[in-house]
């Protein structure tokens, strides 16, 4: 498989190319409009965070970017490549990987089998940072449980596995859907460090979060979502001081 439509375009705004651009994206579930024209972008090598209350469409946004929920209108560009019409299983070639909400793991597969299923060579000239062993080095706990079925893992271990599986794809753009949900502070710290490492490796990240401290700690840019739209965007520090936005959209 090759990239269908050309090489990644150079940056449109400024000189930093965009890892992800979502333009006026609309998506439905049945009759109800879940995404009503979402527009956002993530610059290459940066961490974008989407904040918002439950049910504003954050997970649907992730699924639409991944191609799992069909969009009715709008465009998804990954590294300048329009993937809007591509099936979900074709989108990985652009370097896209997802850490799904709720650690959707395969119960009967062992830890090692999970990671092997996710293995992909990196694209282009990029270095292969991730392999099964590299994931084990990052999460030593997973090495101890390499031969165990995922059904026997704890919540924290499952989250590590879900993250590790996505990393094995050597992604250029990583989508993470509420990775800290239900995790102990210790593991959240580990995730914070991991995200810093990924940034150093040049991976771009789009993160959906409810945990404000974690989100603002890792974010380069914050998008606030409400009723299927991005209603506010700013730098993380600006949001910290903006009580009005926090109260109105995040219920804080």
């Amino acid at each position, binding site marked *: 498989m090759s990239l269908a439509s050309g090489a990644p375009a150079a940056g449109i705004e400024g000189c930093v190319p965009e890892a992800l651009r979502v333009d006026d994206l609309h998506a439905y579930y049945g009759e109800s409009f879940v995404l009503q024209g979402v527009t956002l972008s993530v610059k290459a090598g940066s961490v974008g965070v989407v904040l918002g209350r439950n049910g504003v469409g954050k997970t649907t946004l992730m699924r639409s970017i*991944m*191609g*799992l929920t069909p969009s009715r209108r709008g465009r998804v560009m990954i590294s300048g490549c329009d993937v809007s019409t591509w*099936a*979900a*299983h*074709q*989108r*990985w*070639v652009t370097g896209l*990987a*997802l850490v*799904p909400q709720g650690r*959707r793991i*395969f*119960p*009967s*597969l062992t830890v090692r*089998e999970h990671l*092997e*299923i*996710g293995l*992909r060579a990196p694209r282009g000239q990029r270095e292969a940072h991730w392999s099964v062993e590299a994931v084990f080095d990052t999460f030593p706990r997973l090495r101890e449980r390499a*031969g*165990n*079925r995922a059904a026997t893992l704890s919540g924290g271990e499952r989250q590590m596995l879900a993250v590790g*599986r996505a990393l094995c*794809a050597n992604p250029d753009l990583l989508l993470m859907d509420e990775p800290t949900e239900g995790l102990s502070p210790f593991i959240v710290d580990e995730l914070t460090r991991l995200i810093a490492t990924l940034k150093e490796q040049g991976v771009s990240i789009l993160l959906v979060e409810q945990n404000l401290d974690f989100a603002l700690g890792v974010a380069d840019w914050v998008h606030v979502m409400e009723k299927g739209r991005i209603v506010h965007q700013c730098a993380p520090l600006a949001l910290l001081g903006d009580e009005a936005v926090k109260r109105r959209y995040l219920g804080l």
Partner: protein
Amino acid sequence: MDPIRMARASGRGEGLLRPMPVAGGAILVMVVLAVVAFLPAYQTELVTQMLIYAIFAMSLDLLVGYTGLPSLGHSAYFGLAAYATALLALKLALPFWLAAALGLACAVIGAFLFNLLALRTARAYYLMITLALSQVLWSLVVSWTDVTGGDNGLPGIARPVLGIRLDGAGVWLVFVALVFAVSTLVMWTLVRSPFGYALRGIRENEERMKALGYNVWRYKLLVSMVAAFFAGVAGILFLSLNSFVGPQALSIALSAQVLLMVLVGAAGTLFGSIFGAVAFVLLQNVVSSWTERWLFVVGAVYVLFALFAPAGALVWVRERLRSSRGRSR
């Protein structure tokens, strides 16, 4: 920790399965030799039947147990290969091996075509459409009497020659056991390969596999063709065992029986299907020699399984072993 305990701990939950290929091979050789040496022809044929049904059931387990595709039309490939081989050998006078190879090709192509339709559906609908498609073949065979002999089937297919004539029940059993061993090894290797992990991933979360970049549809199509190939192998062996093929080889009854073998043995374990096939042939033949009401007994056994070991015999035994091991500690 002593090595045995360690080996057990690392095998976790698969202790019963892991030494299977070696132990299984040894048991197979011993059983076959013992049967050939000591048992009369009738019992020898029963063991042959068990092995043939075991190949058939394992091929269905690839779909039902590993990929989560509940097919109720698996006899289509069994019968298609058997009929194609018989017709090519009888009407075109092709040598048996060539006819068999073409028969297998028919089963695989049949699976490709059927699944272009069937894979548009999932779960219960997949079950219904596979049933319907296999019924199309069945009714074709029953009604096209000029070619297929209708209800009378096609008799008179001689057993093949492989250096020596494979005529005698004992020689034939050895040959079938060989085919069984190779088929089992191939399927076993397949389900333990990355292809096999992908199948289990599809069974457990199709969407997640798509997100990981797997073309789920292509995997399902491919495994359907592999399953049809081995169902075809079983069909052709069955044809040779009886020197006959009739519409029964394409019937719903056969599809349902093989599905029961898989479920009773334990779907998704491959070896459970072997158990299921052995149990089925034993029940059918041994119980029917005691009582006319053998179907009643078979039905009762299935009900007992559904109530007390719904995950299948192998899983049931494995759980008993594990809990008794836990208690003894």
